[in-house]
């Protein structure tokens, strides 16, 4: 009976993933029948809890948002944001009319999705594997070692990649040639750029990515494992049916968030690995904007491109979130 009331309540869709091992029919005995106001009153402290965050976002994020208008203006710092002249969609048109617009969009999207396809699952697998290993020196060392590369600065990282892949002296190239294979021109060949970028990224960040799943895995209920062992379930099966489902909400949320950043490929590393030969596959939106800015600081243009990215990203996020909501009941809102 109360279940139905709850569904009709303001929080129509319940975000909460039913926890493993709890019978879904179990009652939630909240004060769900009461009116909205009394519910709000009862939970007044929760408003206090979010107040600092709300205040923070209002002051430091919403207040400066009037700056978005410079995408539609010809911003000159000395005139200020409000007094610069309006130019409508001129900057957007410039971007869309660029000879390279199609290439840029494609390169950005494909690089991002490629990275997601390789870089997203690996931390999950790694975390599940860590979880099977006894706590001890080995586990601690592997965890710490895989975590460490995250802190290598982009400049040094790119420098290392270029050194390792140098056709004349690169360590990796020599390793490949040891097997009697002619190493491809990793740095010059446009078809290799994305792979180099993605693999090096995974190399650097997979360990760091496990942290969040390790935390989520700590939420696994040991009783479930005990029960499953009694039933004769193998380690692998338990991993698949107990550990994995525990982190599914986290996985879904992160996937949704990642989809909302598909056009957000940063410029730094790409720029450092970019050269005139691999340009056709390495030029992404952010590097294009960066180069335009080199000629002369072009605030309005880069804001316009940023706004375009944001809109596309937001649309993607909302779409993916809707899909997730339908299929898994896990969603951002």
């Amino acid at each position, binding site marked *: 009976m109360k279940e139905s009331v709850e569904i009709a309540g303001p929080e129509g869709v319940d975000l909460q993933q039913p926890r493993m091992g709890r019978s879904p029919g179990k009652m939630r005995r909240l004060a769900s029948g009461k009116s909205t106001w009394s519910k709000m009153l009862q939970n007044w402290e929760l408003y206090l809890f979010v107040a600092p965050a709300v205040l923070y976002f209002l002051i430091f994020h919403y207040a400066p*948002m009037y700056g978005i208008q410079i995408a539609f203006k010809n911003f000159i710092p000395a005139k200020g944001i409000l007094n610069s002249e309006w130019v409508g969609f001129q900057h957007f048109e410039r971007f869309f009319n660029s000879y390279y617009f199609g290439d840029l969009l494609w390169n950005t999207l494909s690089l991002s999705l490629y990275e997601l396809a390789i870089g997203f699952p690996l931390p999950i697998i790694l975390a599940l594997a860590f979880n099977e290993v006894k706590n001890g020196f080995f586990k601690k060392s592997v965890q710490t070692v895989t975590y460490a590369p995250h802190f290598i600065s982009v400049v040094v990282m790119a420098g290392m990649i270029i050194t390792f892949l140098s056709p004349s002296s690169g360590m990796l190239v020599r390793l490949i040639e040891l097997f009697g294979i002619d190493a491809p021109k990793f740095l010059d060949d446009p078809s290799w750029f994305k792979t180099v970028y993605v693999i090096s990224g995974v190399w650097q960040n997979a360990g760091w990515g496990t942290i969040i799943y390790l935390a989520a895995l700590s939420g696994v209920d040991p009783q479930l494992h005990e029960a499953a062992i009694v039933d004769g379930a193998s380690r692998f099966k338990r991993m698949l049916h107990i550990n994995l489902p525990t982190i599914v909400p986290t996985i879904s949320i992160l996937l949704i968030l990642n989809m909302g950043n598909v056009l957000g490929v940063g410029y730094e590393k790409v720029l450092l690995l970019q*050269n005139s030969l691999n340009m056709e596959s390495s030029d992404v939106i952010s590097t*294009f904007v960066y180069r335009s800015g080199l000629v002369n*600081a072009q605030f309005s243009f880069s804001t316009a491109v940023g706004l375009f990215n944001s809109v596309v990203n937001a649309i993607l996020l909302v779409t993916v979130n809707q899909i997730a909501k339908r299929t898994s009941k896990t969603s951002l809102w």
Partner: protein
Amino acid sequence: MGKGKKGWALLLAVVMLTTTLLSACGSPDKKEDKGSGSKSGTVEVSKEGFPIVPEQINLTLMAPDVGVQNWNDMAVLKKMEELTNIKFTYNNAPKDSFDTKKNLVFSSGEYPDVFLAAGLTAAEQMNYGEQGILIPLEGLIDEYAPNMKKILEENPSIRKSITAPDGHIYALPVVDFNQPWYRNPMWYNGKFLKKLGIDKLPETTEELYTYLKRVKEEDPNGNGKKDEIPLSSVNLRDIRTWLLGAFGVYEEEVYVDDNQKVHYTPMEDGYKEYLSYLSRLWNEDLLDHESFSQTSEQKKAKAQNNQVALFSDWHAYMTMGGEPGMEDPMFVPVKSDFVDKPVIARNRGITIGAFAISNTNKYPEASIRWVDYLYSYDGALLFSKGPEGMLWKYTDEATKKKEYLPVENIETVRSTLTPNFGIAIPSVTTDELLKGLKTDFDLWVDKESKEKLLDKGSRIPFPILFLTSEEQAEVNVLSSDLNTYVRQMEAKFVTGAEPISNWDKYVATVKKMGGDRMQEIYQAAYDRWNSN
């Protein structure tokens, strides 16, 4: 779901509300109009000699900081304060982020009194000058800056290059008459030359080709391996200008020929010849196949391994390693059959935007006098080498002959004495300045430059000039796509990914992207500059 929609609508309302509210208070522009009305206050500014003002005045200054020494502790600046009675508060920003900070400062409505070494671009000078943020300096120069005035009178082209289209001068340049190189020169590995018995450096593209070929085949480093790299480059940027000259092209983007006609290089026939030539070097493995991907450190490592025959750097030893030496000679510009003699680009001699005064400065007269000292022999010397007695002393003051004191790591000590380290500080560099301070190596480099570049008729490929804001905006738009396309195609032509037979198609695309228009814009700007 319905609830969700309502939520978004409400949210949007809040956003719009906060936006309007805050935009009202976010505007920095119309503050009280400080200073500009009450120029120079009550202080008497002496027109010559020191101190500049009888009682100490305080000013703020913004400059890029290379992070070696706190400016408050620099001997040169302390000395200036003593001399002039002007005390500066330094609102510096780290060099690598200076441009970001500069833009923020211009947006914020609170300006430093003086911008030093701020690298104000032509567009910035125009914008901020038009807004009244930077004040016109030409009047002040006439009255209070005799040194600058003299320089401008003696060099009308400098005046033309620093005068904005509205007729005002908003920023002063760095003037360097002593530095003839447009880009870092190229240098030959002297050991290879000796080994191969070369007593006359290549003077044509064919001779150069033959020499490079010999390097490749005759194992001049004598290690029994054919590991020599005849010509090594980082992205071609470092060698481009020198090789273009062999085909009658002065510079990589825009240059003016002897008949006052402006050319956009990527569409020139000479440029095509240059591409063919490089492509030939590439195909025969004479041009380093890592030229597009390597870092300059990797290039240096190869040179220090004694593998490279020809390369570009400020001085040869900086790439080859070791101490400054005279065994690696400078590249002699070569010529192709395409032209009668090579063209050689020469340094423009000025760097614009090195000094400007904002409208909040109460003492513009005193400020300009301060900077004018830097355009005198004594001031330039002070900023370049520090006060006498620290790094150098006079051996004969009458002839301005000096010598270095026995100080170790002169460059490192210098960086702690003066701000003139790695940034473009206003100054004028003349022969007198370094009299007696030049080492044998310096004199040798001067001689090489004179014989190989200056005496062969090097000249400035295109003057520094102002575009109008409309022209500037159009160039910004055109050049971002054009540069990308041109550099990409250059790499393809050179490596053979694109056959040179596709040249016409390439030129058509460049024209479609606005190559002709670039030429027109710069021609118009040049004609204006020329007629002034």
